[in-house]
């Protein structure tokens, strides 16, 4: 399984997988492979998202302090 690219590349790949399902292009033989790849991408994106949120949560109070200063 290849690595997941940056957010935009990963999202494009994921969208393409979903589109192939929507269009009924996925055979049963391919189904598991595509599902596994889509799951890996989603988990990678969510992991990045959680990490980003955590870092934002650290920074947000510092920005909020700027807003509160009168």
């Amino acid at each position, binding site marked *: 399984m290849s690595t997941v690219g940056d957010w935009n590349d990963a999202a494009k790949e994921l969208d393409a997988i*979903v589109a192939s399902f929507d269009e009924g292009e996925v055979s049963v033989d391919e*189904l598991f492979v595509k599902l596994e790849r*889509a799951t890996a991408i*989603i988990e990678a994106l*969510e992991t990045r*998202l959680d990490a980003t949120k955590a870092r934002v949560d650290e920074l*947000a109070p510092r920005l909020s302090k700027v807003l509160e200063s009168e």
Partner: protein
Amino acid sequence: MDDEVIEPDEVLEVGAFYQLLTAQLESAFGRRHAHWVRGEIAKVYEKGHVYVDLVDAGSASSDAKRPVLNAHCWATQWAPLKKKLAADGVTLSPGLIVNFYGYVDVYAPQGKIGFTITQIDVQGLLGDVARRRAELVARLTAEGLLEANKQIAVPAVPLRVGLVASPGTEGYNDFTGQLLHSGYGFQIILVKSAVQGDAAPAQILAALETLDQHGVDIICVVRGGGSKGDLACFDDERVARAIAASSTPVFTGIGHTGDESIADLVAHTRAITPTKLGEEIAAIVESWHARHVRLPAQRLLDATAEVLDEATVYAAERRRTMIFAVRDRLRAEQRHLASTRSGLLVHSRHLLTSSAQMLASHRALLSAYDPKRRLAQGWSVVTNRKGEVVKSIDDVAAGDAVSVLVSDGSFESTVNAKTGVAP
């Protein structure tokens, strides 16, 4: 030449002479015959009492023969008069045209004839003050000095504040309190100055020049409320010109609401009180802070939250989509297989049925050809010794032994003769 000797009728001693003189003067100019006298103040000196040299208005000081009236106002009378003058913003000073009401007195020890002031025409003085103020404003306007300081750009964040004030005064405390409690890092560079009295204009002028060279962002001149006399220094021409000449924006916060000094007119920005001036300067910084710090910070927070929300929704939506897509795909395949399976069963059953029918048909057909049926009907099967079925008369010869099969058995026979059948 002989001098003419005049015999005096009556010779007076000096003291007696002054008594006579005083009596004569008092009879015409004394306390009961007081007069109004108008003149220009040439000199003024105050030490409890106030002493004024009054001359004709416009007379040259170089004129040694110009008449001078040595007027004075005793302390008991001067104190309330001074208070009244101060309240109206009037200070007795050289050059001022005044109307004094009083009477002549004689001070024999110094041989002086003086004038005791009992009243001062304040209304007249006020008119003169107003006239002089209007003339000053007109001069400053004509020279473009009212607008000069207003042309100087105020720094976006004026945190280095030059201050001309008297520390500890109400105005000073009000102004600095606003800056210190604003939460911003104002740096106040104070140059002390008197803000009332005769010495104030020169000190204010010097303070303005000092701060202008110091490199502050703005210069603030503040003074709390007071009488017009207290605030008179801010109508001083030297102060006005110093403000106009300053290369630093000068802000004023002088007096109460309603007071408007010439310094206010010349200044870059004028606030109605020291407190208000502090508020306005803090507001400038606050405005910059809001525009360049808080607003971007808020936008950053909003944009960050928006991106994260979108990403969260996207990931969740894709997760759901994949689950449903796979489930749908599997169900479709299951349906297809089930359908195929069902079709195969039907087809198989049909095939079996038709095969059975075909077999039955064949069986029926075959049964029609069953030799037993024919044997039962009376047909028989003849075979030779080799067991071969005799199908033609040519297959046997007379005398051959043959075996004849009938429906219930067989028997042996011999060919006696052969007879052909006509075609």
